[in-house]
């Protein structure tokens, strides 16, 4: 039974993470987590101190818990650049500042780093309006490249083909073709197929384009992720050439190292130390965008594009009394995540909200609780109290 502590500033409440019901908890680990939360109010997704909050909060939690594995995400620059126009010089400074924050953490903590960038961002050239289809086109707030098309008419397919001919759309992928691309990963698509949530077609935008349809944000993006088929990874622990290899690299070194796995979103190779490696970020035409599937792939060591993808009619599952109400789209604890069966101590801290506590399988996590950039406070999750000694 995992505990969720919500800190809405000056006010905390405790819940069972799975049911969302209020929960009393007298274990000293809960008191410790409450204390760390109260020391570190979240400044907001776009606030320039949001990354510093990650470092400070992580160090405070480490002082109390002494973990061997720390997972961090620094995302302020991604949120900010997605929504605001910056000069190239300002954007470069933001990337450097984000990397400097990660380096500061490493310097203070002394942990061995595995720093992963989700890849660079480019200006949005044009939105592709697919809202008028006879069928239903579904994308998501945080996806630019992918859009699901349900129940398309022949006219819809003609329109999509015309957009492809005009090089707005890169490809139109059938459900079968999409699943086949990941066949070797034994994709977990059955439940979605059974419930008919998966789209008939996945439509892939040409680089620099983004979809405008159901699920996309009211705030038009200014910059979007580039097609990052390769992403930068810096670590002294050894070489890795595929995003799926990062889990093994971390786990196989935990016996001898205290490790910090650090994600820096929106940042590409130009800002990484020169001795970084470039990793494959997906098979064939597919590349992960920053978001749920990226984090999950990194953490499980398997591509997880069907777990929480853009394009599904996920809203059909949004009934009352769903499990894990604090966990966004996630309705269950993901399996085989990085620290789930790790016997040592682990924590995660980040300013990606509502899924850090699920993605890495760590004992304790603290993340911001922001929705659509509105700052609601922080979520602390306590999965393993038994490892806490005081």
């Amino acid at each position, binding site marked *: 039974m995992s505990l969720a502590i*919500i800190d*809405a*500033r*000056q*006010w905390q*409440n405790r*819940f069972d993470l799975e049911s*969302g019901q*209020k929960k009393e908890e007298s274990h000293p680990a809960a008191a410790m987590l409450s204390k760390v939360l109260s020391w570190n109010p979240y400044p907001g997704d776009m606030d320039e101190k949001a990354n510093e909050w990650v470092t400070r909060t992580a160090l405070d939690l480490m002082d109390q818990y002494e973990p061997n594995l720390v997972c961090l995400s620094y995302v302020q620059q991604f949120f900010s650049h997605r929504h605001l126009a910056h000069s190239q010089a300002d954007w470069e400074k933001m990337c450097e500042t984000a990397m400097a924050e990660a380096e500061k953490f490493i310097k203070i903590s002394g942990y061995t780093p595995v720093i992963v960038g989700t890849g660079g961002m480019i200006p949005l050239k044009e*939105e592709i*309006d697919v*809202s*008028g289809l006879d069928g*239903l086109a579904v994308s998501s707030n945080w996806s630019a490249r992918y859009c699901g098309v349900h129940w398309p008419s022949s006219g819809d397919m003609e329109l999509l083909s015309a957009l492809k001919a005009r090089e707005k759309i890169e490809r139109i992928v059938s459900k079968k073709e999409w699943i086949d691309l990941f066949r070797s990963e034994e994709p977990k698509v059955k439940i979605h197929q059974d419930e008919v949530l998966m789209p008939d077609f996945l439509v892939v935008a040409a680089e620099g384009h983004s979809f*405008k349809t*159901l*699920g996309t944000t*009211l*705030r*038009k993006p200014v910059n979007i992720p580039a097609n990052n088929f390769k992403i930068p990874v810096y670590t002294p622990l050894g070489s890795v050439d595929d995003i799926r290899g990062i889990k093994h690299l971390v786990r196989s070194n935990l016996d001898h190292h205290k490790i910090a796995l650090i994600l820096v979103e929106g940042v590409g190779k130009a800002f990484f130390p020169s001795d970084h490696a470039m990793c494959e970020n997906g098979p064939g035409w597919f590349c992960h965008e920053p978001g749920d599937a990226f984090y999950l792939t990194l953490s499980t060591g398997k591509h997880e594009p069907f777990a929480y993808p853009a394009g599904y009619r996920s*809203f*059909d599952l*949004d*009934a*009352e*009394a*769903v499990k894990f*109400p*604090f966990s966004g789209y996630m309705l269950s604890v993901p399996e085989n995540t990085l620290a789930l069966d790790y016997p040592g101590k682990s924590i995660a801290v980040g300013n990606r909200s509502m899924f850090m506590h699920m993605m890495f399988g760590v004992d304790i996590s603290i993340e911001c*609780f922001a*929705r*659509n950039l*509105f*700052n*609601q*406070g922080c*979520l602390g999750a306590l999965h393993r109290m038994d490892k806490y000694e005081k």
Partner: protein
Amino acid sequence: MKCHFCEHRCDLTKGKSFCGMYADEGGRAVERYPDRWCTYSPSRIESVPFYHAWPGSRSMIIGTAGCNFRCRYCSNSFIACRNPAEVQDVMFEFSGEKLTAMAKKLGCHNIIFNVNEPAVSLPSLMRVSEHAKKEGIPMGCLTNGYTTEESTLMLAEIFSFVHVGLKGFSNAFYKEYVGVNSIDPILRNIYTLSQHCHIEIASPVIENVNDHELPDIAEFICDINPDIPWHVFRLLPEHQMKEMKYPDIERMNQVLESSRKLLPYIYFHNFVGSDWVNTLCPQCGAVAVKRFSLGCSGDRLDEFLAPGNICPACGAGIAMLGTKVSWNEKREKEGV
């Protein structure tokens, strides 16, 4: 030529309206951007938040651009406070018929206008309502209530359930924080709307700014009808008040204690995990409707315990427009 849609009564011969959404055309106030919507997304009715109308139902949320207020703390300033001309590239173009068809396609029980102020898009909304009525889809909205008497009746014609923002209870507050001189039209319109449709009222509370006006608001609501649900929001200031301190939850809750004796349906929320989102029976205090709050636009029905809108413990009636509608009811009925 004066615009008749809101109490600014802008002189359109001098240019566009204050909200930027109307212009003079041959002596008539016409929309500058008709049938253009900033969103069409399925959401829970509780997220709006309507707590006493078709609990559990799936709503299609719509909005346009522009507003006739300039709240210093506006949460949607990126769409509501900007010149509508500047945000037309994010808009979707749907006729009333197409928007209604979309609501059906998405399995929505109702359509709710809630991003900005409906008074700035009344002719478009009227066209949607013509089709929605034919399809048996009720419509609701959030409004700031600063409409003329004439357009208030239009609101009541289009919408069967209305959430009115009563942001303070003094001219001074409205002048300083909202940008209009008088609260009187809003109070008048709340009364009018209460006579024609289901209403709920929302008041954002800003500590040391308008919290002392909360008891007056409660008395005003009670005089109209004590069964009107009142939502007190812990305001997370945005826009020009981004740096303000978040209101203290315990203290604000204490301020509401005396009002709870007047109004049985008071809710205090807009923060994650609020303890004050359940509907309690006005007679015996038993929980009739359980909800869960994720903060702004994140409330949901947890459990509806009052079949037929009757308290499960004592049998007293719970004030409600319609009754529970399950999330997938439309889909199941239509075999989608």
